């Protein structure tokens, strides 16, 4: 069954059972919604914001050259009207849309795109996303402070911008869709300085109305938005500082439309089994994998047999029951919704006897003692206890170290600490829907450094070369070939078993009955947690 939205602009179809066809022309703009979050919104500066709550807000205030079809991980053009990629995959040229205006009324041009990228890669900006632009020529000089402008970014004319890369980079279009690349107006950034994040001005579908620190933010519809028909709502109010349990109670009373932090674990079964609320819940996959890392630089995890034994010892189904079934078992690093996922791969099956045999082969018949680091917030310690019991069954005595998030991350990044880490609560959620994002920082050699995110310190030179080769396949026609290359890389990683993948978390969004829109936009894989531009209000239809 098909449901079409945005006729004439971005025509897309979503397979969704049980929905009746609604045509875009039928959906009237107007109405409002209330969204709650537990934590404060720190900043709305696209060069800096990297939190759960501000990620999609920034996407609705700003635009980049590229974006994704709503509710999917399929790239589409956004501020770019068109683009060309050179045959060697090292030059990307974008034609910009004409007549796109910033919220302050000035037209956006190629100069703004260049300025935004110079700004995000300038160390003084302290952007957590600067590293994504590493393939642009001149990035190194920006990083060490010897240049103030990216050599590889050229303004050809006001509506054309050219990027030269130091290597072919198949992920570059994704990089041009990530928040850190979004276009900001120079005059506003200079006016507000370090406080631009509290006074954001972009080209996006919404603009910031008011912001009461620590209490609420109001987004108003940008009436001059270039993408006619969007956004659907006139206004969104974000209320912050709301505990998820309280947000859920308010949603049930009709005071809140979306509980931004989802359904609290303690209330999950109650809500899911209540027929009144069950139909308000949307379930979707997410680009997330929860895993146990084993430090390959520490004994006995330097032995592949020990790592494989751990993979076979963990009872994943039981762990998923502990979290009320909010996940699916994982047997490889990539989540099922990620291109390159190996559907037919069976992984290491739960097999206690087999695990014991492998330990015996490694000369550890009597097992050994180790430490399992875990983030100290429920349900992570409970999951760690289940893993601890599973390991005890094959003779591994793991002591649980339950610490604050930043401390677990710090220990994970040391070569001689944290022999095992359960990644829950800190686990990798992809920055963009491409398999390479699950390799470099967390399984590649570049992440296996002090303070890095490769907590296994796994570094396989042969795979590193294959990864570089895979990312050099920039021709869109060879997409399948590139996916296949990545698939085989991840399966070969599993032979070395630096991780024991445990599960892929599912997302559950609860939204009020008065909100309309295809289910997929409420569990959007990129506009996390939901796609604010596409939601409409049923009460103004």
């Amino acid at each position: 069954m098909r449901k079409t939205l945005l006729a004439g602009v971005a025509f897309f179809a979503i397979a969704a059972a049980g929905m009746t066809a609604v045509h875009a022309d039928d959906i009237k703009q107007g109405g409002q919604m209330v969204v709650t979050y537990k934590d404060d919104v720190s900043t709305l500066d696209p060069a800096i914001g990297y939190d759960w709550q501000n990620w999609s807000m920034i996407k609705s205030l700003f635009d980049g050259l590229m974006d994704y079809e709503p509710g999917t991980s399929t790239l589409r053009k956004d501020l770019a009207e068109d683009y060309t990629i050179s045959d060697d995959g090292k030059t990307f040229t974008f034609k910009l849309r004409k007549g796109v205006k910033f919220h302050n009324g000035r037209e956006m041009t190629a100069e703004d795109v260049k300025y935004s990228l110079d700004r995000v890669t300038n160390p003084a900006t302290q952007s957590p996303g600067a590293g994504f632009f590493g393939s642009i020529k001149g990035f190194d000089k920006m990083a060490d402070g010897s240049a103030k402008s990216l050599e590889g970014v050229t303004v050809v004319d006001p509506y054309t911008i050219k990027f030269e890369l130091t290597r072919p980079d198949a992920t570059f279009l994704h990089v041009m869709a990530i928040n850190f690349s979004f276009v900001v107006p120079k005059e506003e950034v200079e006016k507000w300085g370090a406080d631009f994040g509290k006074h954001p001005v972009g080209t996006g579908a919404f603009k910031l109305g008011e912001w009461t620190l620590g209490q609420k933010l109001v987004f108003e519809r940008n009436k001059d938005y270039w993408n006619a028909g969007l956004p659907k709502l006139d206004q969104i109010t974000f209320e912050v500082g709301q505990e998820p349990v309280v947000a859920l109670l308010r949603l049930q009373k009709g005071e809140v439309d979306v509980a931004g932090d989802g359904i609290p674990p303690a209330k999950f079964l109650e809500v899911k089994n209540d027929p009144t609320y069950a139909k308000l819940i949307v379930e979707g996959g997410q680009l997330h994998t929860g895993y146990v890392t084993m430090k390959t630089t520490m004994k006995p995890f330097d032995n592949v047999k020990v790592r494989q034994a751990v993979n076979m010892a963990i009872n994943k189904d039981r762990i998923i029951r502990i979290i009320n079934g909010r996940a699916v078992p994982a047997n490889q690093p990539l989540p099922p919704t990620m291109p390159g996922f190996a559907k037919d791969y069976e992984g290491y099956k739960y097999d206690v006897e087999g695990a014991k045999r492998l330990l015996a082969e490694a000369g550890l018949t009597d097992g050994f003692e180790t430490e399992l680091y875990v983030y100290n917030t429920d349900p992570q310690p409970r999951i760690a206890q289940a893993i601890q019991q599973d390991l005890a069954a094959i003779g591994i005595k793991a002591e649980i170290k339950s610490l604050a998030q930043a401390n677990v991350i710090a220990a994970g990044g040391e070569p001689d600490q944290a022999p095992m880490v359960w990644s829950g609560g800190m686990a990798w959620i992809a920055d963009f829907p491409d398999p390479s994002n699950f390799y470099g920082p967390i399984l590649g050699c570049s992440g296996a450094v002090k303070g890095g995110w490769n907590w296994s310190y796994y570094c396989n030179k042969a795979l590193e070369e294959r990864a570089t080769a895979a990312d050099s396949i920039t021709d869109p026609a060879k997409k399948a070939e590139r996916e296949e290359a990545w698939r085989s890389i991840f399966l070969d990683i599993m032979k070395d078993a630096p991780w024991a993948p445990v599960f892929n978390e599912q997302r559950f969004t609860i939204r009020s009955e008065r909100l309309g829109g295809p289910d997929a936009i409420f569990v959007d894989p990129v506009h996390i947690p939901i796609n604010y531009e596409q939601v409409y209000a049923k009460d103004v239809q």
Partner: protein
Amino acid sequence: MISYVARRLLQSALILVGISLVTFVLLYLLPADPARQIAGRSATAETVESIRQQLGLNLPFYQQYLRYATGLLHGDFGRSYLQKTEVVELIASRLPASLLLMAGAITCELILGIAMGLVSALRRGSGLDNGLMLLSFVGVSAPQFVIGILMLYVFSVQLGWFPIGGYGTFSHLVLPSLTLGVLGAGWYARMMRSSMIEVLRQDFIRTAHSKGLGRATVIFRHALPNAILPVIAMIGIDIGMFMSGIVVVESVFGWPGIGQLAWQAIQRVDIPIIMGVTLVSALAIVVGNLMADLIAPMIDPRIKIR
């Protein structure tokens, strides 16, 4: 008196310096690396190093502390690592909410505590007395997040009398004030009860009775003003209790005060905010205690300043 005040002020200043130093050391010793946290998970080593230098995190400990302390003396609490805002601005925007909540809590605990203690003392040994004292015991012992969630569930969700958390109107203020005030109300009820019983035994009360004054006059004119003095003297000390209480209560009720700010900052190891809130709380506690010590002798001549 003046030399006493001067001595106490000097003491307070030393305490504040001590607290700032201890907190700074503890946060410095945390294994978490703020530069890495700001730089994010995909940062290059150069970016991290550059941020470390910009924030002065590469300096030796004593220089970092001196930098911070110098800033403090100029009213500069630094800039939040993760909120990207001046800490002063964050605290200033949230302080009024916390002060309002504390005022509400003081009102609740005084009214509840004095009323309960008074009734208990007058009905000493009765079932009512035992019941009230049991209630005050529960108030003193029960964790605030339990009381808070219970109140929300009963009065907001089930009965619908009050809004479910939030900030803005008088009805938003009632439940969080009660939750925060219940602990102190329990203490005050017990204190008021014993103080009242003691006063009622005094000769001047017997005299008042024998003069033929009515029971109400004796209690409210003569007994109560004497019995209430130790309770009033305690209010300053309560501010310290509130400082720890607001962290929990503000989080439960979504109250936009500095307690909630502290809680969020602790979870994310946002050191400048943790430092700032700790210092503001310490200041409040020191001032509260100072006030308690200075006010007590003014209202109760039996207490003498040495």
